[in-house]
């Protein structure tokens, strides 16, 4: 099938649409930040971007390559400390956190720590939480972006819960002491878009990308998924969105390799 866009571009556009104008988002770099910048350039000009290293509401001149680099404080309204940002999220000011990971399970629990079953000698050691656990614990909604949707990444049980999704089901977050009314709300992959079924807190397919079938998603997912009554098809990127992605947001091709 021929398309004039890549799956990563599509993911950025779908992710951007999850962000409401006038809200605040805590974000790392890479695809989540691209999506956030795209939202700001399109339907959400009044979206407030907050970086964990201390940058608040910068006017991003181009894509930062680190969540703390100079771009993240470019003409910011406030530069502060990491702990102040964590406190700010804890106090309820941050609507969205944008996360990814190496593995995810049906409750949206994320692993960015290790692959393997021996903590002392993991098969692969990943970075660990960074701010992900903090964001996923404290922000109101967690948006998750996972590319390379496959049974190796969408697993029944993650090797390590780095960042809490709904843990082991409804009420589990509250039972463990996490704040009420928080948790993952969307998972954007290179195949589809999930939300979480309110009753079971398990991942639910709500839209497939153009050309992807429900069957494709089922095959690519290592756990049983809930399928919404009407599975939509996501909109492909518009010409304008593609232009913004390449000319304005990532002109150096850090995320969308040239």
């Amino acid at each position: 099938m021929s398309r004039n866009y890549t799956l990563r571009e599509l993911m950025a556009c779908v992710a951007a649409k999850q962000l409401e104008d006038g809200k605040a988002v805590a974000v790392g770099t890479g695809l989540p930040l691209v999506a956030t910048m795209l939202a700001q350039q399109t339907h959400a000009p009044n979206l407030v971007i907050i970086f964990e290293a201390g940058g608040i509401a910068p006017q991003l001149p181009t894509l930062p390559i680190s969540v703390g680099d100079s771009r993240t404080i470019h003409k910011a309204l406030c530069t502060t400390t990491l702990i102040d940002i964590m406190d700010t999220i804890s106090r309820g000011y941050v609507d969205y956190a944008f996360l990814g990971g190496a593995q995810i399970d049906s409750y949206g629990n994320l692993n960015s720590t290790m692959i393997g079953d021996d903590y002392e000698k993991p098969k692969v050691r990943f970075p660990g939480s960074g701010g992900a656990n903090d964001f996923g614990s404290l922000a109101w909604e967690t948006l998750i972006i996972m590319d390379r949707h496959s049974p190796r990444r969408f697993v029944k049980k993650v090797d390590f819960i780095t960042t809490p999704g709904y843990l082991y089901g409804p009420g589990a977050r509250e039972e463990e002491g996490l704040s009420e009314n928080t948790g993952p709300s969307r998972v954007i992959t290179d195949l589809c878009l999930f939300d979480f079924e309110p009753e079971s807190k398990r991942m639910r397919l709500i839209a497939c990308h153009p050309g992807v079938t429900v069957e494709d998603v089922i095959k690519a997912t290592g756990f049983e998924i809930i399928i919404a009554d009407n599975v939509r098809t996501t909109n492909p990127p518009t010409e304008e969105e593609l232009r913004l992605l390449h000319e304005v947001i990532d002109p150096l091709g850090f995320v969308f390799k040239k």
Partner: protein
Amino acid sequence: MEMKILKEGSGEIFCKNTPSEVREWTRKNKTRALIDKRMPIKEAIKKFVHNGDYLAIGGFGHIRIPMVSIYEIVRQHIKDLSVAGHTAVQDIDMLMAGGCVKNVDIAYVVGFELRGLSGVQRRLFESGEVKKTDYTNGAMAYRLRAGAQGIPFIPVKVMLGTDTMLHSPGKVVRCPFTGEKVLLLPSLNPDVLIMHAHRADIYGNVQIDGHIVKDDLQARASKRVIVTVEEIISDDLIRADPGRTIIPFYMVDAVIEQPWGSHPGNMPYKYYFDHEFTEEYLAAGRDKDLKVIERWLDDWVHSFEDFEEYLTKLGAKRLYRLKDDEFLRVKNGGR
């Protein structure tokens, strides 16, 4: 009445200092007088960083990192460090490549963000050669805040319910006022902080432009503090704008003026990442042949007497290009 410990993690506490000991140590070992604290970096590292110390690092992994101190620690073959991996990237990687590290409190390590994973760190962590305890960036900051306040623990609302908690030393209890569950974490008082800032006076009154990240807390929590700066300024300038003083002099043990001291890191408002340098370094660390990274260390660390030689090898043209990058100037536009 009691607060029952409902659950607890198994993570080892690598930093053994308690706030009470650290306060006593501070009384006896740190001057409150305004004295000139300039010294060569070689002397500062020799004097204040010891084998087996718990080390905190300023900046954010590859932003405003104290590379001049990092290189010197590697050069002096300091051993068995425990390190706060509180978003540690280029900084900790070099220390681990140099064989300086024994234990790491992990919040974020191994990764170079968009640049991918580090070969050096994967090798050392996956073999179990370097030991670790897991936390989060928030958790490590809260531990430092407790250390800065001089209290032995602090309640937090993160890590709850996760394996991150189970591999930390945290303990879950109920709040005696509201009944809700919180996680208690031990405070953190590092033995020594190395940090790089924009400027300071000779006494150690430190200014930072832009985000502070965690340097303020680390300086307050740590026993010893080594500050390298882009520029030493007069204390008259400090007194003219005292709200800019992020760290007051009595916390600081050594002040070293070293322009470009964060290279290849990004020094906000001064110079951007040396992207190619870091990519070359990363590639060397990923090579299965360990001689490749050793050769890199020989070429860029051990063969130099000091940081000036390193800068000379980089060359002025390369360094000034990083200024252009920082200020988003068209490359070589006016030069």
